[in-house]
């Protein structure tokens, strides 16, 4: 079944190839070279950025782990009482690393972990995966293979026998491991300090052996137990440290291991950052920044976030989706050549060809823009290429500025909304971002209600929020917000003043209370009524006035800067909006496609004969559709004879002319053959299977689809 094809011609280089693909695929043939280069460089930037983020996020965790390892290891080194005490109980120091359910992201964490360990603690790190270790023997083999190989790396090739040993596959057992460890550590001991390489000098005299179990849940209990029991016997000879990678919860250790085994472990728990926080950081650093010219449209972002939340919690997949967006955008949008950093825009705009100018004119957002201009300018824009280029450059710069401002104000608004009860606009900034991208946020009910709530904030909250806003706006590089900052600061001082004023008013209120000394019931009633009256028509206090002013000011900022992106001119250049494409590629529904094809073939085959209204199906539909439709009417078992008869009834009716002309055996055979083909196709698709329950019957495997 396997066939290898080898070409006779010489192969091209890979990078050329990709560029070539890009070229021949985009038949617009406009600036493909440049677009491809931009795309690649952008992706590389983003990739390195995400890796950096990942590294930073894991830093805390790794530091903790390293300190744990060096602690457990120094005990062994100094043979302190604690260590000997632990020796008595034969406890193995163990780190339980709770990483969360997004198993696919763990790869990076573990790679980083083993790198850090090898740099700082010990050269002897072994990473074990459950799928490689179905038995204790395989586990030991794998373990020793990894340890000895790294040993070879450290000692380079100075002793050949070591290589031979591993090739001869020495018996894999704990004693041989110990003897290997002894020989290795002794060798480094005996080496003179001058001969020591950097790598060994960074490590301690007798570095611990770290064994990482990548996915502890998937290991067989037996294997784990055996390994722990065996190695605990030898812990005084071999400074072993275990690290368990756990996806679910630390409880799993006790569920997997009986008490007698888990008591041999001295477990310390480490918790990694949750994937949701990780995602927030990624979104914060990749999307809510003006560093990258490429942006995601609202629906696209929504699809990506929903795949994350509903399906896998995997940040890696999110980034993969992001990559796909970039490729799609640069691939499908010829104008994406302008999706570059501000510095390059001028050059690129002026080197645009006439066709590209036409492309710009065809953009819906640009058309809207043109319609708003006066007639003279309209003609210029539509006919004069160089004028168009100037205008484009200006518009692109505007777009850039818009985005910079957008991010700052978005953060300010988020500070406000995230402190409101019930979070009408969402808790996370990404939700707010989506809301703002979708449509004018100030026209939504949620925004209205959050403003109402903001008008009820107390003073301390309001002041802290304002301070945060000032910080955010100050951090922006542009001068755009100087006025806003000033205004906010003014508010802050007014609040300060208010505080002093209110203290004075407290004094003025107190005499009113003295009035209530009168114990007359009538008067009491009267004063109470008066108080009630006054409360109803109460004048706003100064604080309330100020609060309204602040909220109104924020509202004005929002209305000015948080305009949804698709109202901006030339947004198509920077924003990717192909949510349907993205969803089709990442979150496909094969079963639905099959269902559609079988139930309404006219969706795919554009033929009038297939068209029919209602839930029905034309009798001229492809054979498999008819057979499928007929089988839907059956219960668990289907009689093939009935099925065949029903099928031939339908088919004969559809081909009336044939049936009349040649009602011979010939036609019957052809129909029979077509039926057989359709049924075996259904079997291949998994709708039915042969059944032995009754002769000439098949069993149905699905329900529904009626």
């Amino acid at each position, binding site marked *: 079944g396997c066939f290898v094809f080898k070409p006779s011609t010489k192969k091209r280089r890979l990078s050329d190839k990709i560029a070539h693909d890009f070229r021949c695929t985009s038949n617009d043939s406009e600036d493909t070279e440049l677009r491809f280069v931009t795309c690649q460089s952008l992706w590389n930037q983003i990739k390195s950025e995400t890796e950096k983020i990942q590294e930073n996020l894991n830093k805390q965790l790794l530091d903790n782990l390293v300190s744990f390892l060096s602690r457990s290891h120094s005990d062994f080194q100094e043979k302190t009482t604690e260590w000997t005490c632990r020796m008595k109980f034969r406890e193995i120091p163990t780190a339980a690393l709770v990483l969360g359910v997004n198993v*696919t992201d763990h790869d990076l964490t573990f790679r980083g972990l083993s790198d850090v360990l090898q740099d700082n603690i010990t050269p002897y790190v072994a990473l074990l995966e459950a799928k490689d270790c179905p038995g204790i023997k395989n586990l030991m083999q794998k373990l020793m293979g990894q340890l000895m190989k790294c040993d070879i790396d450290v000692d380079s090739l100075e002793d050949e026998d070591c290589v031979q040993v591993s090739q001869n596959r020495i018996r894999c057992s704990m004693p041989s491991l110990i003897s290997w460890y002894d020989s290795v550590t002794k060798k480094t001991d005996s080496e003179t300090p001058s001969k020591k390489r950097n790598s060994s000098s960074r490590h301690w005299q007798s570095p611990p052996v770290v064994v990482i179990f990548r996915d502890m849940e998937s290991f067989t209990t037996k294997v784990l137990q055996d390994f722990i029991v065996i190695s605990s016997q030898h812990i005084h000879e071999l400074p072993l440290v275990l690290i368990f990678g756990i996806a679910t919860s630390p409880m799993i250790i006790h569920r997997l291991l009986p008490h007698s085994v888990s008591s041999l472990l001295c477990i310390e728990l480490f918790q990694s950052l949750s994937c949701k926080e990780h995602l927030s950081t990624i979104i914060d650093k990749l999307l809510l920044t003006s560093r990258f010219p490429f942006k995601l449209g609202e629906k696209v972002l929504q699809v990506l976030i929903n795949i994350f939340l509903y399906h896998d919690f995997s940040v890696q997949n999110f980034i993969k989706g992001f990559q796909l967006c970039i490729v799609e955008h640069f691939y499908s949008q010829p104008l994406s050549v302008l999706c570059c950093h501000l510095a390059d825009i001028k050059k690129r705009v002026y080197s645009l060809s006439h066709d590209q100018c036409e492309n710009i004119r065809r953009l819906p957002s640009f058309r809207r823009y043109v319609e708003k201009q006066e007639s003279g300018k309209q003609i210029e824009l539509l006919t004069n290429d160089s004028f168009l280029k100037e205008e484009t450059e200006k518009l692109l710069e505007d777009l850039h500025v818009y985005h910079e401002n957008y991010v700052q104000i978005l953060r300010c608004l988020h500070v406000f909304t995230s402190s409101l009860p019930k979070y009408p606009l969402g808790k996370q900034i990404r939700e707010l971002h989506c809301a703002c991208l979708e449509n004018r946020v100030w026209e939504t009910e949620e925004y209205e209600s959050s403003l109402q709530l903001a008008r009820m904030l107390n003073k301390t909250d309001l002041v802290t929020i304002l301070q945060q806003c000032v910080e955010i706006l100050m951090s922006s590089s542009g001068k755009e917000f100087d006025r806003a900052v000033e205004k906010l600061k003014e508010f802050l001082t007014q609040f300060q003043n208010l505080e002093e004023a209110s203290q004075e008013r407290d004094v003025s209120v107190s005499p009113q209370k003295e009035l209530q000394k009168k114990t007359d019931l009538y008067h009491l009633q009267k004063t109470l009524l008066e108080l009630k009256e006054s409360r109803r028509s109460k004048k706003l206090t100064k604080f309330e006035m100020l609060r309204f002013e602040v909220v109104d000011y924020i509202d004005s900022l929002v209305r000015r800067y948080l305009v949804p992106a698709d109202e901006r001119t030339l947004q198509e250049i920077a924003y990717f909006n192909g949510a349907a494409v993205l969803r089709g590629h990442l979150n496909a529904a094969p079963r639905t496609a099959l269902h559609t094809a079988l139930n309404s073939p006219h969706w795919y085959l554009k033929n009038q004969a297939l068209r029919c209204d209602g839930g029905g199906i034309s009798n001229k539909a492809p054979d498999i559709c008819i057979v499928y439709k007929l089988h839907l009417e059956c219960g668990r078992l289907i009689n093939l004879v009935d099925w065949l008869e029903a099928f031939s009834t339908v088919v004969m009716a559809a081909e009336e002319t044939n049936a009349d002309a040649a009602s011979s055996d010939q036609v019957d055979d052809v129909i029979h053959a077509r039926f057989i083909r359709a049924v075996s*196709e259904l079997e291949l698709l998994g709708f039915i299977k042969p059944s032995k329950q009754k002769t000439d019957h098949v069993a149905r495997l699905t329900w529904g689809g009626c």
Partner: protein
Amino acid sequence: MSRPEGMRGSRRSLQVKFVPDEDVLRHISDDTGTKVRKDKAQLSVNVKRFVKKLENISDNEAQEILEENYVAALGICAQDPVGNGSNISGGEVYSFQTPKRSNKMAELASQLAQTPEKNVAPDDSKCPEKMAKTPQSSSNFMWAEIVWKCNLKKKEFVSSTPYRLRKRLAAPDPYLESESEYSASCSEEEDEDEQKEVSTVLSDQKTPAKIKAASTPPLRNSLAKKNKEQKMGNLVEEYFEAHSSSKVLTSDRTLQKLRKRRLDQQTLHDLLKNAPLAYAAEIRDLNQQHESLFSKWMLQLHLGFNIVLYGLGSKRDLLEKFRTSLLQDSVHLVVNGYFPSITVRSILNSITEEVLDHIGTFRSPLDQLEFITKRFKEDSSLELYVLIHNLDSQMLRGERSQQILAQLSSLPSIYLIASIDHINAPLMWDQAKLSLYNWLWYETTTFNPYVEETSYENSLLVQQSGSLALSSLMHVLHSLTLNARGIFRLLAQHQLEKKDNPSYPGLSFQDFYQQCREAFLVNSDLTLRAQLTEFRDHKLIRTKRGADGVEYLLIPVDDSTLTDFLEKEDEDV
């Protein structure tokens, strides 16, 4: 959905609204932008609405509402240029088993046959109480009950039949007569005379016209009106109805009675070749649409994604075209997953032996995989395109095979493009494998017939094994020594003697050895073993260890072929 007044008192005041499917779909697609955030905000409203609805309507619809939210939250966009019809809610695709009336299929067939031009099914237009969603569910429930009760009555079990039902049963009903040809799958319960009746009815019912006559729609409609009250088949009841009865009512007719010869593979192939393919032009258009994506696939493969194709129709020709048009200049491997003897091992072997030119064997597929990984990492100029037709085939769908293939595909210089067909194929992959595969999904509905893919399938309707098995058997045996042929003959004869014993485990090695010695075919058990190994390599025999640890030998060929084989052999000698 308009429903008649409920038969339960509590439901008397229900308010019902007719919601056509199109509206539901439009609603869903309009709501594309609805977000989780919004959902959260509206949750209280939704819950209220949901509760209200729950009181009023069937679970079916309530479920739909929930689905709507989910679908909207996922941001489905209907404006897909290719149009994969992804805007269908899951409830339509996946639903509960509903009890089926037995002759429903024939009825639908006659309906379809009767209305060649006006494509609307008459039933749907005439019976307003039926939703397009489950058109037959409510009525079927009743019918299944009646038929079932009817059977009981024949056996004089009926005691608790409701009055109404009994009255109706007493009335002459043309339906019940046609019903009698159907019987439960446990046919031992059937009476002898009933069987006879079936066959007489069967001979009458040969022509489809008869079925048409038996199921005239007007009659059904009047009946339907009469039974209106009982038709409130609740989904829950239906569910238990469908699952409780172990019997399935199907007719007892068999293909043999049809007096139609079974087609063998070859004649089937010839017949189909002569039959014109319907909608060839449209299918060609469809395929051209997919072909325009080829270079995009190449780009995405090079960027580190792998591509999986799904959708109805054989994707073999499409992939083949992709291969011939774009992969001519590069090393590539084509794997026919539908081939019944394909294994991961053979895929790995062809990579190591033919692509990497490595001579030598490996202890396990994992070692082999490691070797391949190492080689590909060392040499960055090495690159390989792997095309797998039917990644979900019987032989490759196992967990271990998929794991190995996934790891293989995760190598940066191996580009995998595969097709899947089985409806449950995506279940093969867990998150870890999915991230290794790094799939990009492409819908390529081709409507091409699965010619190659199904040709290896042991279809029920095609004559089993047929001439192919026999000829290959003969072919292989002729290349063997006379003694070897004798050994095989012995085994075959022994197997034929025991053919009436269904639990025949095979011939044990010791017995076989004894017999071979007696026939002067072998002189030691080593020679016999060597011979058996050869047989096994040619897949002539199968060995199986019994519970007692004894090795049993079996020829995996059906008895008729074996008999034919022995006859042929006798002719030769």
